[in-house]
């Protein structure tokens, strides 16, 4: 009898048709994280996470959730299931965005105020290196093989290529004004860097560090100054690229083979960051001024829902399977 009772919940889990993942959204002004269910698209709960949370990421095994608490000048680490704080990591002042090495360690943090990228070991909680970069570092990307970390500096207008073994800058690429985000495609053959004021996305060949194309945007009925590219996400097959266009309230859908814009989807207000579910069925976007998250059906390239979250949503990450 007891055995059956124990087995029953396990069987119920096996019978679950789609795997639901938790979606975590930082609310910059609300000082909390809203957790959504990727299957029902309903809010599970809202949890305090420190002051001015912005960048957010999760370990590849899904056991640790990292949040840049910008006004606390550190990274807070949470249990993604209970949302209890486990410990903190040193980050340097005003951490905004970071990227985790594909192996899950270390963490590379952009410090906007002191022009450094801080490298933190997430296990020993020690700072491994502080790498001087350009003025106002912000965007962080990592190559799929983990050998190169990209940092973009908002004022110097460069993408810095950092060797993850030596912690040294091996190349700099000048892009357009105020680069905000860097994202590799899955096989590492292309690097996309968005420029918020320049209004473009530079496509860079990582092997030669040369710009092979500049993607520009034009939305009918929208003034050009409102088109401010920030977040970039690429599907695993490299065929679709999504670019969040800030106060134009649109997400551009780009053909990842030709790098031509196919469509502009109206999401919410001031869209900055995005995250896919592991199966790439959905893409979630954070809309800072309408205080909601839009859910994009990736295959249909359509916005299917908007979910109200906290005050000024900034970053988003989806738990792995």
């Amino acid at each position, binding site marked *: 009898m007891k055995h059956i009772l124990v087995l029953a919940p396990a069987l119920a889990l096996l019978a679950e048709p789609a795997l639901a993942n938790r979606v975590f959204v930082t609310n910059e002004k609300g000082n909390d994280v809203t957790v959504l269910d990727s299957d029902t698209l309903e809010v599970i709960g809202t949890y305090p996470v420190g002051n001015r949370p912005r960048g957010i990421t999760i370990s590849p095994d899904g056991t640790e959730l990292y949040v840049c608490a910008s006004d606390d000048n550190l990274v807070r680490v949470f249990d993604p299931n209970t949302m209890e704080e486990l410990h903190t990591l040193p980050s340097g002042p005003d951490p905004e965005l970071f990227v985790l090495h594909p192996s899950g360690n270390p963490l590379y943090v952009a410090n906007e105020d002191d022009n450094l990228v801080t490298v933190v070991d997430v296990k020993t909680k020690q700072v491994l290196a502080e790498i001087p970069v350009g003025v106002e570092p912000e965007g962080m990307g990592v190559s799929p093989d983990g050998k190169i970390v990209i940092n973009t500096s908002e004022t110097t207008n460069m993408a810095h290529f950092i060797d993850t073994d030596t912690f040294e800058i091996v190349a700099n690429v000048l892009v357009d004004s105020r680069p905000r985000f860097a994202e590799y495609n899955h096989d590492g053959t292309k690097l996309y860097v968005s420029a918020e004021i320049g209004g473009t996305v530079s496509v860079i060949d990582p092997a030669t560090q040369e710009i092979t194309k500049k993607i520009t945007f034009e939305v*009918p009925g929208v003034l050009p100054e*409102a088109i401010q590219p920030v977040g970039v996400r690429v599907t695993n097959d490299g065929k679709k690229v999504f670019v969040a266009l800030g*106060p134009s*309230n649109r997400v551009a859908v780009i053909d990842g083979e030709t790098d031509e814009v196919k469509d502009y989807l109206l999401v*919410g*207000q001031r869209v900055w960051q995005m995250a896919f579910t592991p199966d790439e069925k959905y893409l979630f976007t954070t809309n800072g*001024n*309408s205080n909601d998250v839009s859910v994009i059906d990736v295959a249909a390239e359509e916005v299917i829902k908007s979910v109200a979250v906290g005050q000024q949503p900034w970053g988003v990450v989806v738990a792995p399977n």
Partner: protein
Amino acid sequence: MKRILFALTIAAGPAWSAAGTDPEWPCIQRKQPHLSLGQVWAGPVPDDRVTELARDPRIDALAARLEQRRLPMEEAEAAIADFAADADDARLTALMVAVMGKIEPDRSALIEGIARYGRSQVALAQRIEERRAQMAELEAAADPDFDAIDAAEEALDWDQRIFTERQQSLTYVCETPVILEQRAFALGRAIAAHLGE
């Protein structure tokens, strides 16, 4: 004296530093002089006929009602649904054009007002600086005129008080364009929900 200088530095610090591209813009929020239809509307692009329709008195009156922020969104949505019952996509688009025709000029005037507000704060800060210099001069005189010093101090106190109070309301003032954008976006979403019905 020292106290005043300190207070001024604190009050002026964050407001002028985060101005972005326009040095006279006093808000932390990025200055966006105009709002365009495409930012809040993914429906049909209005043609001449729709622009003409937007002047229809019934549409214009409804737009004027919807624009009022004191009208709760639930009631606005209900009014839009009533209108949509016998309105085609052209009329719905015309309603959105009419709504934007009201919100956008209000917002632009507000942006201009905030810029003026910012400029007048800069001017006031300069005047406070001058008054301080004047007071220092009066105090340093070999035979100080205490009546003049008292008068100068009172004038300085008033300017300082006005400056600080205006600075405190700036946070709220800067939020207002965003509130108008949110209203336009919410109305756009509510109207677009009835397209193609």
